[in-house]
């Protein structure tokens, strides 16, 4: 078995308007399937991905927000949300669809420094 690396996926885009959020989720699941150490960071508009109450029937697009709740089944349990990004959008931890760890920008930066691989979406 090859060594386990620390992967961080940095999500900075809102869901649905572009394909980035969904593509990130796909790669997260693939990476987790290879038994890697996966964490997800939600920064800037990326925090909108975790907003509770998404109802996509009207735009005839798959609602992928429930997938974040399934991540723990893939042993992906490290979800970090940047506080400044929540604040700037009138959101709070209570608005998130899954339990998350809220970090300051400085704390987020420190965590990024610890990664072997950082992938941006």
């Amino acid at each position, binding site marked *: 078995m090859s060594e386990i690396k620390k992967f961080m996926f940095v999500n900075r885009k809102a869901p649905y308007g572009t394909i980035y959020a969904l593509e990130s989720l796909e790669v997260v699941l693939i990476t987790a399937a290879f038994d890697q150490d996966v964490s997800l960071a939600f920064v800037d508009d990326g925090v909108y991905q975790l*907003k509770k109450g998404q109802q996509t029937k009207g735009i005839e697009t798959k609602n992928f927000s429930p997938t974040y709740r399934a991540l723990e089944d893939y042993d992906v349990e490290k979800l970090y949300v940047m506080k400044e990004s929540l604040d700037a*959008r*009138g959101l709070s931890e209570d608005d998130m669809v899954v339990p998350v760890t809220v970090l300051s920008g400085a704390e987020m930066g420190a965590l990024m420094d610890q990664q072997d691989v950082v992938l941006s979406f």
Partner: protein
Amino acid sequence: MNSALETCLNVASGGEILLIEDAVYAATIGSAFEARLREALGKFKIYVLQPDLDARGMGDRLIAGVTTVDYGGFVDLTITNNSCQSWL
């Protein structure tokens, strides 16, 4: 967020504004654009596409004074206005 809405508001002298897709976030309480949008409400009628608001889970935090429309309402707006300009 890009500068499309900011430029639209600075350039437009009248007419109606419909926010679709990710632009709907600008019409939500707590967004960085809230103050600018409230100010613009004095000058323009502003609409958001309800299905885009619902998809993003933001239906319960629309700024008061902004009007929601469905796809049929979107079509009506393209008819009742002389021209239609997309701010990509």
